[in-house]
């Protein structure tokens, strides 16, 4: 008895797996299993984006006599997009804290702010795309622009789907309050939204900032 007590005090994080062996502890709680599974999905999503990034990096010079990134990209617009998405990620974190506090009103407010910032980001991106297509720099112009529209468009598609999910979560919390299953969905949503911001960091660096110098 004293031996196990000494062990637990020396080993606050149970790296020696505590008193009960791992094999006898049964499955982890559902909250952890669900979030971990979603984390694995997000990592696979990162790998898919890596494919798009690789295609873009390989094709960035293949402009077929058309305009290059340095001519097309408007860094002011990209800067605003970055600010909007970063603030949106922060607001999503506030929604997470409201969830922990089980405060429905502030959760809905924070989620609404998250969604509006995300929607503003998407509007800027749609504006950029229509502007480029209007300048005859659409996805059909060159391999570079195909890869550009595929990569940035894929991220934009993720944001659009995230907005749909966000509104679903607001409706579910509104109608059903913080039930256990809804808490798990909120946790997955916030992972998804933060992950989109991580991909945007890679995107604005590789595509816009490095592209503007080419």
């Amino acid at each position, binding site marked *: 008895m004293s031996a196990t007590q000494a062990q637990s005090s020396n080993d606050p*994080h*149970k*790296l020696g*797996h*505590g008193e009960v062996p791992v094999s006898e502890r049964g499955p*982890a*709680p559902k*909250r*952890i299993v*669900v*979030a*971990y599974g*979603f*984390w*694995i999905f997000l*990592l*696979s999503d*990162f*790998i898919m984006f*890596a*494919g798009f*990034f*690789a*295609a873009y*990096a*390989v094709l960035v010079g293949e402009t077929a006599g058309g305009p290059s990134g340095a001519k097309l990209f408007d*860094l002011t617009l990209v*800067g605003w997009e*970055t*600010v909007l998405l*970063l*603030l949106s*990620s*922060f607001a999503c*974190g*506030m929604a*997470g*804290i409201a*969830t*922990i*506090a089980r405060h429905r009103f502030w959760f809905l407010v924070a989620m609404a702010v998250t969604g509006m910032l995300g929607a503003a980001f998407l509007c800027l991106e749609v504006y950029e795309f229509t502007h480029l297509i209007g300048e005859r720099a659409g996805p059909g112009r060159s391999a570079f622009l195909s890869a550009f529209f595929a990569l940035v468009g894929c991220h934009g598609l993720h944001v659009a789907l995230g907005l749909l999910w966000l509104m679903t979560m607001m409706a579910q919390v509104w109608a059903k309050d913080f039930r*256990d299953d809804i*808490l798990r969905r909120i*946790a997955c949503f*916030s*992972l998804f939204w*933060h*992950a989109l*911001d*991580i991909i945007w*960091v*890679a995107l*604005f*660096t*590789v595509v816009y*900032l*490095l592209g*503007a*110098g080419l």
Partner: protein
Amino acid sequence: MSDRQHGEDLDDQNAPGEEGGRESIAAGVRTYVIGLVLAGLLTAASFAAAGSNLIYGPAIPVALIALAVAQMGVHLVFFLHVTTGPDNTNNVLALAFGVLIVALVLVGSLWIMGHLHHNLMPMAEMMQRQR
């Protein structure tokens, strides 16, 4: 953290995205504010570095990539709460594997396509030889 009141055993692992420990709301908000400030500074540094004459030209891409990696780290730690703590080993190991595959895809593609590009004859020259 959320379900722990429901009488589950204390786990030795955090779910991804879950803040470790039993922090107060103020501490939680402070984590996000620190993350926001750091991410904002790194973003501003990236945009400043992209067009600046202060940095030696050829070093700018390296600086930009370093800043981007730093900012992704800030996002992971302060927003996603994936840290190097012992309660996060599973999440970090999965992330490490993901990063490995991402690196293989990126470096492999660039390497192979760079070689192919190098070894291919320019189109005009090829047309000449076929005549």
